[in-house]
């Protein structure tokens, strides 16, 4: 009896996981989206040799200005238009901040960690300040909503296919776009001219330079593109996921995105898996309390305080990083500003 207790619980747990899978799948992607986009931003930056710990700040700024756009326009131009304009602005702001980071890291050759930290603090200040002065006094809220895409019920209710379809299709447009970005970037990085040059510049800029590749241009390009992705993550937070803005609402997602990037060893797909892992752990914490298990297992699972479930994603990441992933090697020239010797 006691001998069998443990294996039985393990078995029950496995069964339980299977039964809640249909609940888990549809909610994971949305949880992973801002992390994945942030991580992709990191990948673009660091693959070209620029460290960016300012992703958090880039997200927050874009989130705010995206929201501000929708907020200001949705009554005049209508909800749908305002949203897409808002997303465009968010992406644009992200790209602009990317430009700033590129200028600091590539041209000014400022220390890239300091530049990133600056970005994070500035974002808190600027968004909080403008939020106080512009949005709050108006007393209004709202920035329009993205009409949700729903897969037809008959599909959604299919036994196995349904949840899987829901995982990818029963989502907002930005969440859905993540998968596209991941695949495109993975291919682009390892199969295209742009990717080859990016990796070369991030590993051995001088070698690239001696082959006539413009190291600065390549880095600027990547950092700006990365900023745009961080901007999209910001747009997701305000325009797709909440429809409202609050100071510091990124809540550290930019840093967790960095974790996902390192976790994924600086590859798009790897980073995405890292984000999914995190999202899955979060989702499990939700599902476990909304749809508790029966029997002894249920007793045990319910006896665990909710705070532990909330902490699960963080603890799990540490355990897996230490236990499975281990030492991860970044691009060799990551964070090293490139200087042409003896040139102006």
């Amino acid at each position, binding site marked *: 009896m006691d001998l069998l207790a443990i294996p039985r619980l393990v078995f029950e747990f496995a069964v339980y996981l299977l039964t809640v899978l249909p609940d888990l799948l549809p909610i994971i992607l949305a949880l992973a989206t801002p992390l994945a986009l942030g991580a992709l931003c990191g990948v673009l930056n660091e693959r070209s040799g620029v460290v960016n710990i300012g992703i958090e700040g880039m997200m927050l700024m874009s989130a705010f200005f995206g929201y501000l756009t929708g907020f200001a326009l949705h009554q005049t131009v209508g909800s749908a238009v305002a949203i897409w304009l808002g997303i465009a602005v968010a992406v644009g702001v992200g790209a602009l901040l990317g430009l700033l980071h590129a200028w600091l890291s590539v041209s000014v050759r400022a220390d890239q960690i*300091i*530049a990133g930290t600056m970005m994070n603090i500035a974002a808190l*200040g*600027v968004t909080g300040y403008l939020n106080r002065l512009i949005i709050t006094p108006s007393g209004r809220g709202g920035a329009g909503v993205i009409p949700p895409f729903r897969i037809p019920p008959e599909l959604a209710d299919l036994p196995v296919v349904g949840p899987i379809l829901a995982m990818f299709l029963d989502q907002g447009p930005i969440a859905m776009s993540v998968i596209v970005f991941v695949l495109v970037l993975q291919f682009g990085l390892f199969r295209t001219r742009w990717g080859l040059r990016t990796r070369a510049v991030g590993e051995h800029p001088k070698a690239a330079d001696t082959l006539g590749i413009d190291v600065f241009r390549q880095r600027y390009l990547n950092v700006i593109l990365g900023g745009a992705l961080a901007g999209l993550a910001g747009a997701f937070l305000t325009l797709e996921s909440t429809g409202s803005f609050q100071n510091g609402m990124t809540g550290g997602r930019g840093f967790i995105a960095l*974790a996902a990037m390192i976790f994924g060893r600086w590859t798009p797909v790897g980073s995405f898996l890292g984000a999914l892992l995190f999202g899955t752990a979060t989702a499990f914490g939700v599902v476990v309390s909304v749809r508790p298990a029966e029997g002894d297992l249920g007793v045990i699972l319910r006896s665990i305080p909710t705070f532990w479930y909330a902490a699960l994603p*963080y603890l799990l990441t540490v355990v897996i990083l*230490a236990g499975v992933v*281990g030492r*991860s090697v970044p691009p060799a020239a990551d964070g090293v500003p490139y200087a042409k010797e003896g040139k102006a």
Partner: protein
Amino acid sequence: MTRLRAAWRVASIPVYSILLALLVAAVVIIVSSTFTATGFDPLLPLAAYLRLLIGAFGSPSGISNTLVAAAPLMFGGLAVGLGLKAGLFNIGVAGQFLVGAFASAVVGASLAGAPMLVGMPLAVLAGALAGAAYGFIPGFLKARTGAHEVVTTIMLNNAATLLLTWAVNDLVRAPGFTFPRTAAVGESALPVLIGRNLHLGVVLAVVAIFVVRWVLDRTTLGFEIRTVGLNPEAARYAGMRPVFITALTMTLSGLLAGLAGSIQMLGVIGFYAPGITASVGFDSIAVALLGRSDPIGILFAALLFGAFRAGAPLMQIETSVPIEVIDIIQALVILFLAADLIVRRLFRVRAAKPEIAELQTVTKTWGGTTPSTTPGGGD
């Protein structure tokens, strides 16, 4: 005289950066004033800065507020700075701060009745050890498995907030309150030395600055830490043990962060409750960077941030300029430090940039490679 000039060589860039930051922030304030009820007001920045200054230094209580706010930032800045010296980027100060504060609160409360000379030292010790333990985890993991400390410390920060909240609720919740919190630390509190709130922790912080400086500059341990930070390979060939130094440095860094939490708890807050934020953890990074990860630099950076903290309330009530402007100013200061090129152009500064090899090391070792293996390191 020459010593003065030498000091200015180091200080000029930061000082100019601060001036420039205040200037740019002023423009922001003026422009934004047009949005507000008061309307366009070109003198608003002057008013605001004046209040900041008065609030921070205008009165004995202002000065002591500044010092009290600066003390934990000194510990936190040292924690980050020490890590940077060894090529470690400890973003985990926030978590180590909370763990330290919690431990001090619990031990302090349990000895609340005991004589101060018993309870207070034990409570401080508890905070230091707890922080050290929480810093040891990422240090050990990095040394053993190479798990990147940036990732692990970020995760441990979030875990700390949640698990400590749980601990307060289910383990050490004090009866007689409508919300979860620990009992007051009572006699274990750090004694107030001068005026309303200038407590012993401020002294401890300043002492810590010089202790850490002495360790780094004059002891073999400091030499080992710096060597491992700058060139781990060479350190190995010299008979040092980078793996051990890494774990040790991270532990010491955690200890300092824990002390930050401890003096904040025993000197100011007095009880632990889930709502407690670790803004110190976030600001400490900025302080360390601003101080070029040098103890003396950190001392001044912490005082600057402390002054902003202490001056902000007066600024808000007298001019109703949002407190967020402080973040903007701090960010601008760091911006101009990072892009000191601008400053040099503007103020025609000749002074050589004080080299921050550690920072470069950290940026390079971002993902765990040693700077020596990065390209361009040829003869």
